[in-house]
C-alpha cells in the first residue's frame, strides 16, 4: 500500500538530514566507528528512498514547503520520478563504496574521507530534491568543497589536480549564481517552476539560460570544458574516483536537465542551446572515446570514458522538448532514456573504479601492460570491469541498453539521424576501449603471473561486483524503474 501524501512529504527532508547528521557524528567518533556510522546512515536513507519510490510511483510528484514557508520566499523540495531514481542510485553506490572503504582503508586516502563523503552526499541528495534555485547553488558549492577536498586525499600529486578542479567548479557555480540573480531580478522568485511560469522571453532570459548551460557544462566536464576531469578523477583515491564519476557529476547534470525541463518551451532560444549542448556532447562522445582508446592507464581510460558518457547524458536536452516530430511519446522516451542511462552510468562507473582500485592495490600500478593474468588471479575484479564495460557500451543485458534503446527510439521518432549515428558509433567506440581493458587482463593459461602485492580484502571486489551485477539485474527487469521515471516526469515547459 502506498504511503499517504502527507507522510510522504514529511519524509522528503530526511534524504538531506540523515546524511547531514551522520556527517557531523562521523567527524566526532573515533576512526574505527566511522564506517559503521556511514553505512548505517546510508541504510536508513535507503529505507526512506524506498518509501519515496513507492509513493511517487503511486501518486506522482511530491512537493513540500519546508517549515511551512510557501514560494516565492520559502524553501521548497520537489520529488519526481527522476529524483527518486537518482536518490536510489546515490544510496546504492554509497553503500557499495562505504563497504569497500571500510574493508580496505587504502582506498580512502585518509580518515577525513568519511565525513567528507557524507557532506557530499548531503549536497547530492539535496540537489535531486531541491525546488528552488538558490538552494541548488548553496548545495552545489557544498558539493564542490567536499569533492575538491576528497580529490586532495589522493596525496602527492593530487593537490594540483584538486586545485584545477576547484577553479573550474567554482567558476561554474559563479555562472550559475549570476543566472539565478538575473532570473530573480526578472521574476522576483527563486522557485524554479514559478520562475519558469513568470519568465518572459527575451535577452535576459536567454542570457540566464546560457549562463546555466555553460556553468553546468564545466562542472560535468562536457567537451570542450572537460580537461580537468581526466586529471582529477584518476588522481583521487579509488573510492573517491568511484563517487566522483558515478554521483558528483550527476548533481550538476541534474540541474541542467531540470532547468531545460522547466523553461524548454518558455524561451525561444532554448531549443537552439539544447542542440548546441547536445552537439558538444556528441563531440565529447567521439573525443572521449578516442582519447580513452589511446591511454595506457586503467584509471585514465575510465576517466576519459566519463567524458564520453557525459556526452550521451546531454543528448536528452533536445530530445525531451515537447514540440517537434514524434510529439510527447518521443519526449518521454528521450527523458526516460537519459535518466536510465545516467543511472546505468553511475552503477557501471562506480563498479569499474572500485574494481580498478582493487587491481591497483594488488598490482601496484594501473598500467594496462602490468595487469596480465588478472582474469585468472582476480576474476571478480576482472569480471566487474568486463560487465561494467559492456554496460557502458550500452549492450544487452545491462541497464544502459534500456536507456540507449529509449534514446534511439526517441531520436528515430524525431527523425534526428545525427543523434542516432552518435548513439551507434559511440557504442562501438566505447566497446573498443573496454575491450582494450579486457584484453590487457588475459594471459595464456599457466602464464598468468601472480600480482606482486597482496590483493585487497575480498569485500572490495564483492562490492564492486555487486554494482555490476545490479546493472545486469535491473537491465533485465527495467520496467519498474522506467515506469517510475515516466509516471512522474517533471512538469513544465518541456515534456
Amino acid at each position, binding site marked *: 500500500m502506498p504511503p499517504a501524501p502527507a507522510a510522504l512529504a514529511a519524509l522528503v527532508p530526511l534524504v538531506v538530514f540523515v546524511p547531514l547528521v551522520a556527517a557531523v557524528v562521523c567527524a566526532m567518533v573515533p576512526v574505527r566507528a566511522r564506517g559503521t556510522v556511514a553505512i548505517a546512515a546510508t541504510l536508513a536513507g535507503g529505507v526512506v528512498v524506498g518509501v519515496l519510490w513507492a509513493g511517487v510511483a503511486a501518486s506522482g510528484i511530491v512537493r513540500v514547503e519546508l517549515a511551512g514557508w510557501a514560494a516565492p520566499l520559502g524553501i521548497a523540495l520537489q520529488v519526481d520520478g527522476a529524483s527518486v531514481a537518482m536518490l536510489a542510485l546515490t544510496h546504492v553506490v554509497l553503500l557499495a563504496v562505504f563497504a569497500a572503504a571500510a574493508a580496505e582503508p587504502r582506498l580512502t586516502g585518509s580518515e577525513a574521507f568519511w565525513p567528507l563523503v557524507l557532506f557530499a552526499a548531503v549536497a547530492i541528495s539535496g540537489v535531486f530534491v531541491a525546488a528552488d534555485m538558490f538552494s541548488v547553488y548553496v548545495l552545489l558549492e557544498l558539493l564542490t568543497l567536499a569533492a575538491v577536498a576528497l580529490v586532495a586525499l589522493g596525496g602527492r600529486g593530487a593537490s594540483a589536480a584538486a586545485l584545477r578542479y576547484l577553479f573550474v567548479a567554482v567558476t561554474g557555480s559563479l555562472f550559475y549564481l549570476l543566472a539565478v540573480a538575473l532570473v530573480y531580478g526578472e521574476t522576483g522568485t527563486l522557485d524554479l517552476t514559478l520562475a519558469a511560469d513568470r519568465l518572459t522571453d527575451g535577452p535576459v532570459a536567454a542570457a540566464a539560460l546560457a549562463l546555466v548551460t555553460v556553468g553546468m557544462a564545466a562542472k560535468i566536464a562536457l567537451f570542450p570544458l572537460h580537461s580537468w576531469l581526466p586529471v582529477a578523477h584518476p588522481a583521487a583515491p579509488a573510492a573517491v574516483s568511484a563517487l566522483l564519476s558515478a554521483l558528483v557529476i550527476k548533481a550538476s547534470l541534474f540541474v541542467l536537465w531540470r532547468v531545460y525541463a522547466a523553461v524548454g518551451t518558455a524561451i525561444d532560444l532554448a531549443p537552439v542551446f539544447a542542440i548546441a549542448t547536445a552537439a558538444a556532447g556528441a563531440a565529447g562522445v567521439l573525443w572521449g572515446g578516442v582519447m580513452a582508446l589511446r591511454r595506457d592507464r586503467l584509471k585514465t581510460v575510465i576517466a576519459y570514458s566519463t567524458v564520453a558518457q557525459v556526452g550521451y547524458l546531454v543528448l536528452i536536452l533536445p530530445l525531451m522538448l515537447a514540440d517537434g516530430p514524434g510529439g510527447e511519446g518521443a519526449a518521454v522516451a528521450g527523458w526516460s532514456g537519459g535518466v536510465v542511462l545516467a543511472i546505468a552510468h553511475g552503477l557501471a562507473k562506480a563498479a569499474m573504479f572500485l574494481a580498478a582500485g582493487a587491481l591497483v592495490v594488488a598490482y601496484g600500478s594501473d598500467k594496462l601492460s602490468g595487469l596480465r593474468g588478472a582474469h585468472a588471479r582476480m576474476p571478480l575484479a576482472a569480471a566487474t570491469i568486463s560487465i561494467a564495460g559492456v554496460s557502458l557500451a550500452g549492450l544487452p543485458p545491462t541497464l544502459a541498453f534500456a536507456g540507449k534503446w529509449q534514446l*534511439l527510439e526517441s531520436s*528515430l521518432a524525431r527523425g534526428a539521424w545525427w543523434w*542516432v549515428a552518435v548513439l551507434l558509433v559511440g557504442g562501438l567506440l566505447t*566497446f573498443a576501449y573496454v575491450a582494450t581493458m579486457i584484453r590487457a587482463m588475459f594471459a595464456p*593459461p599457466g602464464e598468468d603471473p601472480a600480482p606482486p602485492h597482496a590483493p585487497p580484502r575480498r569485500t572490495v571486489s564483492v562490492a564492486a561486483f555487486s554494482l555490476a551485477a545490479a546493472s545486469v539485474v535491473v537491465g533485465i*527487469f527495467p*520496467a519498474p524503474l522506467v515506469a517510475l521515471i515516466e509516471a512522474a516526469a517533471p512538469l513544465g515547459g518541456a515534456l
Partner: protein
Amino acid sequence: MIPGSTVVPSVLPLVLLLTSLVPALVIFGLREDQRRVRTALNLSGAFVKAAIVVVLIPVVLSGEKLRWSFAWIPGLEIVFVTDTFSLFFVGLSSALWLVTTIYAIGYLEGSPNRSRFFGFFSLCVTATTGIALAQNLFTFLVFFELLTLVTYPLVAHRGTPEAMRGARTYLGYTLAGGVVLLLGVAWLTLEVGPVEFVAGGIPAVAELAARDPATATVIGALLLTGVSVKAALFPLHGWLPIAMVAPAPVSALLHAVAVVKAGAFGIIRVVEDTFGFALFAELGLLQVLAVAAAVTIVYGSLRALTQDDLKKRLAYSTVSQVAYIALGAALLSPVATAGAIVHMVNQGVMKITLFFCAGLFAEELKVHRVSELAGVGRRMPLTAAAFTVAALGMIGLPPFAGFISKWALGVGALDAGQPWVVGVLITSTVLNAGYFLPVIIAMWTRPAAIPASEERAPRLSERGTRRIEAPAALLVPALVTAVLVVALGVGAGWEFSPWSLAQFIADGAWP
C-alpha cells in the same frame, strides 16, 4: 498450415533457458578443482534441456504453442514462444550441446581456467536458446548481442596473441553487425510496434511496405545485413576463418550450432517470419540474398581448396555450407525453404563431426595440416572413418545427410524457376569434392609420415593401460555424430525426422 493452433501461457520456455543459464552461473562460482560438480551440472543441464525438447515436440506438432513473456519496459515485451521452428533450433542446439559438452570435458582435461570456459560455454547455449525462442525481433536482438559477448571469452580462451587477435576480429565484425541490426530493429519497432513473428510474414510489416516501400526496403536491408555477419555471408565472412584459433570444442560449437547457425536462423526469421518470402521478393531483397548466398557458396569453396591448415579449410567450408541455408531461404519455393531449414541440422551435424575429428588429430597426433594427414587412417581408423563419413556428406553423396539438403535445394530451385541455382549447386559439389576427397584419399591410402615409435606410443593411456585410439570422451562424440550423419540421410522419411519437420515448418510459411 496447422489447424486451430493455440497459444498457451507456460513457464516451460523459460525453463528451457534456465537449464543452461543456471549451470553457467553456478559454474562461474566453482573452484578449478571441483571437476565432478562441474561435469554433473553441465551434463544434467544438457540432458534436462534435451528431455524437455523431446517432450515438447508432439505438443508443438499438435498445434499448441507455449508462450512466456514479461514487460521489459512499458510497451515492449520480452517474449519466448515454442513454435515449430524455434523448437527445431532448440532441439538442434541442445542435442549438439550435449555431445560437445562431453567432448569439451575430455578435451580440456587438466587445462587451467575450466570454470571460466564451461561457464561461458553454457551461457553461449543459453543465448542460442534465447535466439531460438525469441518471438519478436527485439527479444531476438537481445540474445543475438548476448551471444556475441559470451562467445568472445571462448574464442580468446587460450590467451595467446593469436587467440586475442582472432577474438578481436570476431568481436569487431559481430558488434558492427549488431549495431546495424539494432538500428533495423529499433526502426521497425518504431514504425509498426513490437510485433511478433508470423509464419509467412507479419501483416503490420506488409502494411508498412504498402505505405512506404522505401522505408521497408531499407529496414529489411539493415536487418538482413545485421544477421548476415554472424551467418558469414560474403563479404561479411572475414571473422570466421580467423576465429578458428579457438579450442576445438568452441570451433565445433561456433560452426555447428551457436554463432553461424544463429545468423542463418536469423536470416530465415527475417525473410520467412517477419517480411514473408513474397514481400521480401517484391522489395527486391530476396534476389540480393540469393546472389550473395550463391557468391558465398562458390567463394568459400574456392578458398577452402587452397588452405593447408585443416581447421581453416573447415572454416571456409562452413562459409560455403552455411550459405546454402541462405540460398534456400532466398528461393520462392516451399521445397527450397524446407531444404534451408533441414540444412541447419545437416550442416551442423556434419561440421561438428569434422571439427571433433580435427581436434582429435590435433590432440593425439599434433597434426594440424592437411598435408600431414597422410596415413592417419591406419593410426586412428575410427576417427578417420568419422571424418570420411562427414566429408562425404558435405560433398552431398547419398545416403548421407548432405544429400537431402542438396536435393531439396535443387528441386526447390527448379520449382522456383531459378535453374541457375542448380549450376551453383553442381559447381559447389565439384569444389567440395575437390577439397575433401584429397584429404580422404591421403588419410587412407598414403603411407604414414609419423615415425613408428610415435605411432605406437600414444595407444597407451597415462596409466599404461591399452585404450582405443583416443580418449573415449573425445572419440565417442565424434562417432555418435558421424552415425547421425548417416541416420539423417537414411531416416529422412521417418515421421519425426528433421527433414519431415522442416517440410512441416516450411508448409506453415507457404499458405
